[in-house]
């Protein structure tokens, strides 16, 4: 089967291998790369990673399903991670998650039917001085309010 990862992506995985004494150490970086290219870790993407690192597919799947940032199902175009741990809990983080989900009409962990947004409750993002916090894709938002959620939901495409 032809690979689903790009030639550049496979070349990058080969480079990553060289950074470690054992090729398997490049597995997490390679899975980050594959997820970035394909959008999620499809069976074909995991097979490409397994082939590139000389690992059994079962090992790749075992690792991919252990870590919460790896997804074996397709996500929305935007990923919003809302912290619900202690400092955010004490500062209304649960209410922010509730408001966001009700605005989007989905449950925590769900994706909007149009594929626009996935909302994930996450553990402490180590930004407790900014509670409540969330990550919109790769960007952190501090002291989130319901109004900020409304603005965000209206703007994300």
């Amino acid at each position, binding site marked *: 089967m032809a690979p689903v990862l790009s030639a550049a992506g496979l070349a990058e995985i080969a480079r990553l291998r060289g950074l470690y004494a054992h090729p398997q150490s*490049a597995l997490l970086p390679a899975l980050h790369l594959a997820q970035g290219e394909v959008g999620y870790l499809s069976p074909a993407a995991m097979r490409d990673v397994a082939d590139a*690192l000389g690992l059994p597919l079962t090992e790749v799947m075992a690792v991919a399903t252990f870590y*919460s940032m790896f997804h074996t199902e397709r996500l929305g175009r935007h990923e919003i991670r809302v912290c619900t*741990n202690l400092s955010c809990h004490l500062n209304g983080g649960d209410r922010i998650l509730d408001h966001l989900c009700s605005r989007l009409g989905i449950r925590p962990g769900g994706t909007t039917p149009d594929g626009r947004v996935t909302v994930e409750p*996450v553990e402490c993002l*180590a930004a407790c001085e900014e*509670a409540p916090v969330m990550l919109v894709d790769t960007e952190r938002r501090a002291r989130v309010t319901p109004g900020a959620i409304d603005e965000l939901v209206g703007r994300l495409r």
Partner: protein
Amino acid sequence: MAGPLLTKHLGQPDRERLETYLGTGGYQAAATALRELRPEQIADMVEASGLRGRGGAGFPTGRKWKLTPKREGEVRYLVVNADEGEPGTFKDRTLLEQDPHQMLEGVLIAAYANQVHRAYVYLRGEFFTAFERLDRALGEATARGYFGKNILGTGFDLDVVIHRGAGAYICGEETALLESLEGRRGFPRLKPPYYPAVRGLYNQPTVLNNVETLAHIPHIIGLGVEGYRSYGPPILYSVSGHVTRPGVKELPIGTPLREIIFEHAGGLRPGRTFKAMFPGGSSSAILTAEHLDTPADFEPLAKLGSMLGSSAIIVMDDTACIPAVIRRTVHFYRDESCGKCTPCREGTVWVSQILDRILGGGGRPDDLDLLDGIARNMTGTCFCPLGESVPPSLRASLKYFRAEFEHHIRTGACDLAAGEGQVVAAAGIPGAEG
């Protein structure tokens, strides 16, 4: 006290740029170390400084370095634990985002002191901004000869690789981190007999240090042991929760909790009263107002059955429902348990179920004894510190706030005025039923 040391330049624009760092004397300590000091002298200085690991366990850093075998021809590694995830802790992320070179300079000195030529920074996957800045800082410093081959013309070589994690609290535990760095699920390894210093990454001797720990190193070398110690010695407290000025507070170690919370973190919101605190992240036993005059240091907190841990102080005022707070932390450990050992995998689920029952209005009179029994059975039986983190707070909360649990069981409701977090806490995770 002589003012901040580690946090002096936080917030300076373009701090991740090499020029900015060099402009405030950056990499001079590393130059001194590589050019004028022998590796053993550096380890001696770090030991004499009294620096203890800032990841949570507090092992003396100089001693750890000296325990790492330095056999000729044997590969050694330096691994930086930048997987900060202990709830309430945010000092490492702050250092990485706002002064990445400071830690990198510590990495260079530590690598030289341990004669290591390859270092890995295991960076938390969710730290997107920190990754960008650290990557840029490392790139510029490498291009200018502070990393790579023949550093500063001294003949010393060091390559640094930034390795991103992928979302797993357990990987902050040092042996689980090494498993993850080797490309496997983050399951902790059995220790003793072999600690990472002796058998770490790929079974080679490995120095494993936390971000803040390494950020102290340039100052110990630059100022000398006495000069460094005259700053306190300093430590970074992460203060959050119900305080008006949360943030990273650099203070002399042993500053009383009351002073940290009420002077440096701005105290409580108007009209509120102090109720409880975690002095060292959610893995430390919860304490009350009667403990506020305790110095925030290793031994005084250990005497109270709590710990300094990662020195993350989470403050709760009278709007916090303690059973709901404890449930939130137990859910965290349940969800993050790797499942390798039974007391943690099962214990966290059982405790969660009982707390859910109590907070859902279906608590039973013997539930508190049951909770205490499970907590006792988890103590000392879990494979790694993750499971061991549940009993201290659970048992302390049953001791100090028993009446709140009893009220929930008796009435099926919370008796607190509905405050921030309170309404939702009583209703469980919002949206979960919808």
